[in-house]
């Protein structure tokens, strides 16, 4: 089978799975609805309760889950290749800590600004993620030649710890209700009530995915080593910068939409590699699609398992992801 054909078949299979999950998920909930009825155009909209629940109450949340899941999984793949470390996550380089600090500040300072209908918390978290990205980038590219992946890693881990300290400090100064609201945000949640936040995050994610699409073969070479990639014709400096910036931008946009939902960016790429091998031309799109389905399913569990109580989806992914991560670590060593 030709390589092109193999890529097409595998990616189509993952796409079919993701689409099936995303059509099925909105039908599940406290009120079960009929898919046939929801899509029945002969019933007037105001009489079609199933359609209203499907399109207004549940679909935005499922789409948000799909978008965030796809983005975090794809960003995870890119950063793992860039850092040549399968244990890296989209949050390893400080993006989520910056975003959390931004959200925390927005909550405690009672920022009420809104740009184009986007409220202060997603705005501030996106700004925080950009700030963290800029700091790590500046530190790592102060090296003479390209980005030093070691400096990237150290700067990211240190920035994570430093921002966490700042978050705790701000939290300490905040009152109880504010602190609770911020903590709730940091648990991650896809409680999206309209299509608007999705549309707002979409441009950043689309731009990043366009960059991802261009670099899949380069990621194969980068993961073999920078020097080796350079000798095979990769413009290392350009490739590393593009990978880091696009992955960080996408992660920042996803976190502003769903909060820092952990473990998606590591579990999904690993499961996908177990299924399809290591070639990034397959791993990257398959991870994005599988990530979408995976987060939508986790969110489905989050809103149905203890219904009417809703578990934060970040808690669900962490409960699955934590043990999985440890298993991975033991398996590798």
């Amino acid at each position, binding site marked *: 089978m*030709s390589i092109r054909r193999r890529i097409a078949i595998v990616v189509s299979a993952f796409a079919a799975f993701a689409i099936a999950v995303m059509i099925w998920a909105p039908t599940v909930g406290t009120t079960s609805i009929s898919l046939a009825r929801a899509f029945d155009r002969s019933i007037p909209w105001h009489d079609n309760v199933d359609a209203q629940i499907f399109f207004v109450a549940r679909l935005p949340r499922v789409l948000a889950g799909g978008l965030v899941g796809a983005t975090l999984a794809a960003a995870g793949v890119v950063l793992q290749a860039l850092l040549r470390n399968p244990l890296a996550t989209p949050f390893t380089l400080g993006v989520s800590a910056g975003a959390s600090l931004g959200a925390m500040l927005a909550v405690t300072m009672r920022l009420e600004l809104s740009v184009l209908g986007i409220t202060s918390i997603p705005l501030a978290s996106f700004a925080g993620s950009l700030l963290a990205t800029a700091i790590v980038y500046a530190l790592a590219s102060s090296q*003479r030649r390209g980005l030093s992946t070691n400096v990237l890693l150290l700067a990211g881990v240190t920035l994570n710890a430093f921002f966490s300290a700042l978050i705790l400090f701000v939290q300490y100064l905040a009152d109880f209700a504010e602190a609770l609201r911020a903590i709730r945000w940091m648990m991650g949640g896809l409680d999206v009530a309209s299509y608007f936040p999705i549309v707002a995050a979409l441009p950043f994610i689309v731009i990043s995915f366009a960059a991802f699409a261009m670099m899949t073969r*380069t990621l194969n070479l980068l993961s073999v080593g920078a*020097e*080796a990639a350079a000798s095979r*014709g*990769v413009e290392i400096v350009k490739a590393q910068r593009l990978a880091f910036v696009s992955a960080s931008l996408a992660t920042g946009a996803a976190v502003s939409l769903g909060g820092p939902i952990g473990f998606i960016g590591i579990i999904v790429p690993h499961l996908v590699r177990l299924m399809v*091998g290591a070639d990034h*031309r397959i791993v990257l799109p398959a991870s994005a699609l599988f990530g979408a389905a995976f987060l939508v399913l986790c969110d489905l569990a989050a809103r149905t398992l203890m219904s009417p109580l809703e578990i934060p989806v970040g808690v669900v992914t962490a409960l699955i992801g934590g043990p999985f991560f440890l298993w991975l670590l033991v398996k590798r060593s």
Partner: protein
Amino acid sequence: MRDLLWADNVSFRYAAGAPLVVEGVTVRLADGALAGILGPNGSGKTTLLRLLSGTRRPTSGRVLIGDRPLDQLSRRDAARQIAVVPQETELAFEYRAIEIVLMGRHPHLGVFTVEGPDDIRIAQEALAATGTSHLSDRFFHELSGGEKQRIVIAAALAQLGHSFSAPSVALLDEPTASLDLGYQLEISSLLTRLNQDHGVTMAISTHDLNMAASICRELILMRDGRVLAAGPTSEVLTPDNVRRLYDVEADVHVNDETGHITVLPVRRIDSGSRLPAPGSRGNPA
């Protein structure tokens, strides 16, 4: 024979203010050459290979491929003509051998192009040339050191494949360093065969004087970033040069019948430039 790859009085430092690791080196590789680069650790062999491959640009001087300055070529165009076999290849992910070899086709493909039948045929020919066709679908990390090295050499061949109209060079950095005697021999004969039968021009850095003596027709001796001597193997590999290169007394034996040269190190000479031996004050009387 005309010069294919030519370093013209190149110097290099890794960072501003750092010492020069390569200093005023001129090296000429003729079309079809099989040259060895010898020298102690830290003598600048690996850096010289990086300058020759164009992955680093010299601080001063220039590198030419054919008649063109290497830095005028894009990384992609340079990679079509110059392939590198690194000392060791460690993967972060579990690729199969054929995937590693196909990665050599990178500079021949567009951003969204996928390897076609031609690329796959070239990769299979490269596997055949290195005697690794049977390893094609095995995971790289499960292979032995010698098998891995042959796969990486196959990737370099696939990278150069089909650019025979344009001159091509393979640069190998200590290709036998981590291999046992059997694999060393295997890689040595593979390199000779690739050079003679497939016409691949090669420069090989190595610590193995006997391998260099048996397969390289010419040698470049490097010490402290400079060229100590260069020329045909039989002229360059003398006891005197070995002493100047490594501070080691050596017997250099030439077999009258076969012409084989063997080097037997006898003892270390304390020249003062090396680390002092334990107990000594580093001050040769």
